[in-house]
């Protein structure tokens, strides 16, 4: 999973590419740490290139959402592939994370 973070003022534009699974979830957690510890008010994540996520990946998204909400900021996941979106739907994550 490749994570690219571009900052524009208080906004972070994030691009995810590849598969998020048990083999790279730890690295993904490190990669998104700047988004958890930062002070961005808006985090836009482009998921066009995200092909897969396991429960390990879901945990990371939940942690990120909890952290971001705690500081009153906004997280939005965009352009998710239908198969990946289904995983978010089945687990109820679509109700607690904004997906457009």
């Amino acid at each position, binding site marked *: 999973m490749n994570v690219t973070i571009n900052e524009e003022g208080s906004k972070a534009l994030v691009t995810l590419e590849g598969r998020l699974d048990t*083999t790279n979830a730890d690295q993904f957690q490190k990669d998104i740490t700047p988004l958890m510890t930062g002070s961005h008010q808006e985090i836009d994540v482009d998921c066009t290139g995200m092909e897969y996520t396991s429960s390990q990946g879901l945990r990371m998204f939940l942690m990120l959402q909890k952290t971001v909400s705690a500081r009153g900021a906004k997280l939005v996941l965009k352009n998710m592939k239908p198969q990946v979106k289904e995983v978010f739907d089945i687990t109820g994550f679509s109700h*607690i994370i904004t997906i457009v």
Partner: protein
Amino acid sequence: MNKRFDPIIDKCGEIIDFLMASPDMPKDEDLQFKIRLSVEEAVENVVRYAYEGGMGWMEVGTELDPEGVMLTIVLRDAGVPFNPLEKADPDITASLEERQIGGLGIFLCKQLMDHIEYKYEDGCNVLTMKKIVA
């Protein structure tokens, strides 16, 4: 198609790839996605928790019935007896504040496969997952 991995420590990726490369797997991408996710969650569960330090074995296999309709995946290990199906499902209606991090793996298997069962047999945990693939 069967294979025994011993020891299983750090073999998660290898075991998943072995199962997904089975000729019994469907070609349909959507089905493959769902099966892979279930396989990953189930295999990871064993690799992480069955043996202390991951120093133990695991046998995995696939089978397709002669009609090509029902795919069966079996995972067997001699680790700590543990029925993952007894674990309570996560509350998927919980609010963000109340939502617990974790407990999603086996829940996903249950949702994505058509049938899943566990038995403890001859000193082994045996998890069987079935999916209609035609």
